């Protein structure tokens, strides 16, 4: 056992498979005992997976380190201390928020690239009418896989990756509030990825990422069960992560780090965590009810049994609309953060920006049914949801106020992270304005389920959040790896991605209005020209990730050594070495002023030099300095 224990992932897999087999065998045994040996019906994919998977999941968590570092003490034993150093830390159970941050970033970047390759195949299929690469069945599988994996990436990569890495540094904490819970949360992610990939290998599922019943309860594909189990697990990741962030932000701030002195990125994570904490259960409950309908024969969503298909849509969107703010609020924080540092100006209207984020949290749970204007729900619900949805534009407008006010009269350093931040503003503006057409009932009953919607949410999530992700990746790359990326390759990546993105998604608005509906493998030949153009552009957009991947991999291995504070930024994470030492700060810093004191020589963010990076980083003898 000691041999396996040196490779936590291998041990986790072994334990996980053993647990799964125990669960499956137990289920089979009970079935045969109940139904009699003659029935021979000891294996049913739905039932066996539903029971065996949680057992396997527990086995995986025990094997990967949950027992050794945590579980033992529940039974009076002694736990091991996190002892791994060097690269091995990244492949095991570690409580260090910086290790976990990089684990999230790398895992979800790989998932992002895999999902991106899948959608290249989808676009190849859609290059012209008729079926080329896929048939109707495999198309649905590929499209559904792209949908759910990208949703998972969008929900988790900013908060899980950069939130984990940067947030404790920014608030002057030594780690997250619950390091072992943090590790457990991350190690719930690989089972999600394994389940989704296994589901595709077993023939996929055909309900997209939304899993609308009765299709999801009636279809015979086993992939649907794996999908449900994966997404319920992922919901757990989201909730546990949110709890950890909320407690960390409330209780672990350094002395003097008042709520009004928090870097705006911390506010973004805080707002997103509130939403994830309050709403994720709804989606998990909806998916669990689908499992009950499939496995236990309940009728939550089966009208013949007294259930209602509309009920699921309400439950699903009650989470899934707020979920877009879980994706985008950290992106708002991050963009404002980067704009402030790289325009060398204090964040404009800080309090209004925070108010905007809180306003979005407040409204997020009141707008879900704008996804259901064509669903057949009661007509009297249409007007209130139209009104509430239009209200969201007001707090979002405050974010834009802060952004353009910060750019105004600044000293714009147009390096790669800044370019992505400016690109975000353009794209999210497009996404926001086209959202108004979809909040308006008369235009929505026309545009719902067309490519107009596809273009709209790609503008907000890919053009918005993923552009913010790219900005964050370049912005914090030197901090996380201790090395600089190649600026020229980064610029090539930006321009390819920005132009490619417009060329893919602008025509989608048009073809959607002209009557092309989404989630179809084939379409009338009238839309051929559009789709050929979109596919060609999509390949160009996909190619932009080659310089990205190349740049980051090569720079991580042998890029020039990064200084502690290459951007001359004021917040705390830049006042410690790159990468920061274990437990971040030799002494907890004292915060004495606002986070972005640019242009105010007399104002400082922290009182004195922080750690060992004072002299080269902060300059002027005041490491935490406000550029003084």
């Amino acid at each position, binding site marked *: 056992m000691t041999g396996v224990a040196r490779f936590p992932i291998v041990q986790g897999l072994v334990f996980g498979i053993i647990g799964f087999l125990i669960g499956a065998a137990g289920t089979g045994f009970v079935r045969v005992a109940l139904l009699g040996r003659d029935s021979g019906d000891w294996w049913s994919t739905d039932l066996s997976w539903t029971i065996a998977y949680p057992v396997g999941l527990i086995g995986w968590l025990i094997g990967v380190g949950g027992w050794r570092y945590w579980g033992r003490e529940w039974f009076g034993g002694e736990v091991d201390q996190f002892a791994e150093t060097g690269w091995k830390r990244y492949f095991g159970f570690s409580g260090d928020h910086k290790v976990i941050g990089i684990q999230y970033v790398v895992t979800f970047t790989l998932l992002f690239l895999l999902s991106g390759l899948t959608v290249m195949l989808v676009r190849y299929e859609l290059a012209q009418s008729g079926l080329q690469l896929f048939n109707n069945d495999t198309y*649905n599988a590929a499209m559904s896989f792209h949908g759910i994996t990208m949703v998972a990436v969008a929900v988790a990569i900013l908060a899980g990756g950069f939130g984990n890495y940067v947030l404790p540094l920014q608030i002057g904490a030594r780690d997250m509030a619950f390091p072992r819970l943090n590790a457990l949360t991350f190690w719930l992610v690989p089972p999600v990825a394994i389940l989704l990939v296994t589901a595709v290998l077993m023939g996929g599922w055909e309900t*997209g990422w939304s899993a609308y019943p009765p299709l999801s309860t009636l279809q015979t594909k086993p992939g649907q069960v794996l999908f449900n189990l994966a997404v319920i697990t992922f919901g757990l990741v989201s909730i546990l992560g949110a709890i950890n962030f909320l407690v960390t932000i409330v209780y672990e701030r350094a002395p003097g780090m008042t709520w009004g002195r928090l870097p705006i990125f911390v506010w973004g994570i805080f707002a997103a965590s509130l939403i994830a904490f309050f709403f994720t259960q709804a989606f998990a409950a909806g998916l669990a009810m689908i499992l009950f309908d499939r496995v236990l024969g309940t009728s939550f969503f089966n009208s013949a049994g007294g259930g209602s298909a509309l009920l699921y849509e309400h439950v699903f969107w009650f989470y899934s609309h707020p979920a877009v703010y879980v994706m985008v609020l950290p992106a708002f924080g991050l963009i404002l953060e980067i704009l402030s540092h790289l325009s060398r100006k204090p964040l404009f209207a800080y309090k*209004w920006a925070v108010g905007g984020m809180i306003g979005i949290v407040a409204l997020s749970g009141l707008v879900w049914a704008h996804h259901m204007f*064509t669903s057949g729900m009661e007509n009297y619900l249409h007007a209130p949801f139209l009104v509430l949805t239009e209200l969201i534009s007001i707090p979002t407008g*405050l974010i834009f106020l802060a952004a353009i006010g910060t750019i105004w009269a600044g000293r714009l350093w147009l390096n790669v992270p800044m370019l992505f931040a400016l690109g975000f503003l353009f794209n999210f503006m497009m996404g926001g304005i086209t959202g108004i057409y979809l909040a308006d009932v008369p235009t929505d009953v026309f545009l719902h389920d067309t490519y107009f919607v596809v273009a709209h949410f790609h503008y907000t999530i890919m053009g918005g959040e993923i552009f913010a992700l790219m900005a964050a990746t370049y912005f914090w790359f030197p901090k996380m790896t201790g090395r600089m990326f190649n600026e020229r390759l980064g610029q090539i990546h930006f321009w390819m991605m920005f132009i490619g993105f417009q060329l893919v998604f602008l025509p989608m608005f048009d073809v959607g209005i002209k009557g092309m509906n989404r989630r179809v493998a084939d379409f009338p030949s009238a839309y051929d020209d559009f789709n050929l153009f979109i596919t060609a552009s999509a390949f160009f957009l996909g190619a932009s990730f080659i310089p990205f991947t190349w740049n980051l991999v090569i720079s991580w291995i042998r890029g020039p050594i990064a200084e502690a504070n290459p951007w001359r930024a004021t917040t705390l994470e830049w006042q410690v070495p790159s990468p920061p030492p274990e437990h971040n700060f030799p002494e907890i810093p004292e915060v004495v002023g606002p986070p972005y004191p640019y242009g105010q020589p007399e104002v400082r963010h922290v009182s004195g030099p922080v750690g060992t990076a004072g002299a080269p980083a902060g300059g002027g003898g005041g490491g935490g300095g406000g550029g003084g």
Partner: protein
Amino acid sequence: MRRDFTWAAVIWVIVSVVSVAVAVFIMDPFPAVGAEEAGLIDDAFMVMTYMGAPVFAIVIAVLIYGVWKWRASGAPEEGVDDGPPILGTNWFPKAWFVVTAGLAVVVMIYPGLTGLAELREDDTAEMRIEVTGLSWQWLVHYPDSEGIRLSSAGGDELVLPNDTRIQFDVLALDILHSFWIPAFRQKIDAVPGQTTTMYTTVTGAGDADGDGDFDYQDDVAYRIQCAELCGLNHTDMAMNVRIVEREEFDEWVTSQTASAAKVR
């Protein structure tokens, strides 16, 4: 500072005018119009475009002017290269808040609530047609026209009389589908265990593309398209729509009943 505002305002006006001009003169996004409601919906779409353009242009103007005027030549020097500490604690955010809130209220009233009221005000119809979604075909029943039954799987077309207000009662036999004819703009889901309703005033017969001939088959907007993912053959769940004048429709009804009688 005043110069900056002036220049940004100039760029804002130019970008706004150009984008509205593009919307008015160049953009021609809509498919063929086959129903009265399409006019209302297309108008609402254009109104939002005209309103959205200047809002979009504010951000674009600051982006363009900022990158042009305030770009730094390279890495900033500590302390020297900082911008002015404009904190935004003055009247400006309040004004922004009031203006954006005002715009949001305007859009939600017009074209929002007014459009919704107009779309829903008339729930009378001259003819009722039942449309049923069944994986993966459309079944059509004309209770007012000798009870004719059609099926997309049988290669039938949905035939509708022109200048007639029709009530579509939409049902689903197994799972969710969505009844959508792009030329009519509206869609409504077919929900198991429930009857959903869509009212349409058909005005489509005529010459949509102006080539002197009503050739619906060239115009993809005249099709029923399932607009809710319904599994395997969702893609193929479509049915052509033909709109004919009233007399021709009556002849068609007669011929259908005759052929049905023959079969019987």
